[in-house]
């Protein structure tokens, strides 16, 4: 059992679960029918990857926990997702931008994981990278349309950038557990991912005629289990049945 690896795998799994959950909140309420098909697709990719990662976490831990024990039966302070993914959906511009920010990070991550020394994660990386490439394309196209669409859409995407950009730095944080994984060749160095991320975002923002903002302060906390207040409300929905009927089979 490698507790550092367990910690990092749970972090990544939590990112996917929470972002997928947020995206799934749109289902049936999208601005157009085509998006009512695309947004659930992205949510399904996220939650699907979370399931594989939780199952792997359970294997590493080897104490008989299941994917659902990880997903449903922890308290607020035990979830390790970054703050970006838990931010409320806001409008369509916020949701698309949040997904792009995350996907632009995960794409180089999974690409680098093709060479990971961890066999399970390496195997997962091939499917994951294809899925996440679609998210960059789909959300990136929307950012461009919104940025270069109407005055209103331009303003809305700019508002989304101001609101969400301060949460992006946390994606690249390195804690001691991650550092241990990087040293073992399990995970790529974060600085390397940052470069690719910057390039992707620059390119899309340029096309969208929006500017990458300078942020005075970057928010962080989620990685250490310190979340915003909206997160507790998200968990109260996510966990409702598991908490109300403990020990039941569904």
């Amino acid at each position: 059992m490698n507790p550092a690896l367990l910690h990092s795998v749970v972090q990544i799994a939590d990112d996917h679960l929470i972002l997928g959950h947020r995206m799934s909140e749109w289902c049936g309420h999208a601005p157009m029918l085509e998006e009512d098909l695309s947004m659930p697709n992205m949510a399904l990719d996220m939650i699907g990857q979370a399931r594989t990662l939780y199952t792997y976490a359970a294997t590493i831990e080897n104490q008989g926990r299941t994917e659902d024990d990880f997903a449903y039966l922890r308290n607020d302070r035990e979830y390790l997702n970054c703050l970006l993914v838990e931010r409320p959906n806001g409008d369509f511009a916020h949701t698309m931008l949040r997904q792009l920010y995350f996907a632009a990070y995960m794409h180089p991550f999974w690409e680098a994981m093709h060479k990971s020394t961890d066999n399970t994660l390496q195997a997962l990386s091939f499917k994951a990278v294809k899925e996440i490439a679609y998210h960059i394309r789909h959300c990136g196209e929307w950012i461009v349309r919104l940025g270069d669409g109407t005055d209103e859409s331009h303003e809305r995407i700019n508002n989304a950038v101001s609101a969400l950009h301060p949460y992006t730095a946390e994606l690249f944080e390195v804690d001691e557990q991650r550092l241990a994984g990087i040293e073992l060749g399990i995970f790529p160095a974060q600085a390397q991912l940052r470069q690719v991320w910057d390039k992707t975002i620059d390119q899309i923002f340029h096309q969208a005629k929006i500017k990458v903002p300078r942020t005075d302060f970057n928010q962080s906390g989620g990685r250490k289990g310190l979340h915003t207040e909206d997160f507790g409300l998200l968990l109260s929905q996510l966990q409702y049945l598991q908490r109300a009927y403990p020990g039941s089979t569904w």
Partner: protein
Amino acid sequence: MYSQGLIGADNKTEETQAFLDAFQKRIDAEEKIEPNDPMPLAYRNTLIRMIGQHAHSEIVGMLPEGNWITRAPTLRRKVALLAKVQDEGGHGLYLYSAAETLGVSREQMTEELLDGTAKYSSIFNYPTPTWADIGTIGWLVDGAAIMNQVPLCRCSYGPYARAMIRVCKEESFHQRQGYELVKTLCEGTAEQKAMAQDSLDRWWWPSLMMFGPSDTDSQHSDKSMQWKIKRFTNDELRQKFIDATVPQAELIGLTVPDKDLTWNPTKNRGKGGYDFGEINWDEFWRVVQGHGLMNKDRIAARKKAWDEGAWVREAAQAYAAKQQSSSVA
């Protein structure tokens, strides 16, 4: 010109007896009618109404089940529910496309849904207060939809028939998945089983109402049968549904909430079938007229999504227009 194909769409085509007879002859020969074929205006309008209602039902139907996506109890169930609701959106999309072949646009149909002139299946005006409702809807509502839709795969209008073939495959998957969910509850704790029974109690009668008014009262059936849009009457389909579903309920230990339900060996030309109690048609008409528990909320939710999405659709159009003009320049 495209509109030349749309005989009957312009209201000017004279529908002589010879024209109507020739059309009926094609129907009787089981030929498929295609978008550019001449067709009587009433045939076209019946199909626009039917396909439109069907499409709206798929879209509004996303709401009661969508209500539980964020509260699904396991990751497996969450993924299955999300995929199911997404499938219903997909059905809506093929059906709107099928209706568009008859000369009506998706925007127009959407506006008719939002202003209340177009109907959708009344079943979706019932609420989903418990998780068991997610299983019951799959089992009964998708189950009833299949009974209605399997014969539509042979509908005389080609685009509708083809859309239905694709839709039916997915609906039968939904039905099995829903039944499996209810079965799991029945095999669970006493509380879970009670949740399943309560859900069946609430959905049983509304599901029977999904087949529409009794044949003696249905205004649309006769002509639709003659044109082979429909192949079975409302009452025939309802009987088939009951006969198929009652044994499924018994198998998992649930009680169908109908004290008059009895096996009648002489029914269905001696093959046997269930006699069942009186359907509360007052309730049916009350919900159709807009007074179900969720009618207002359903339309309000669709309207909110449509209105709040307006700026997104406008942005996409503005962007596409800019791209087009810059590629021309």
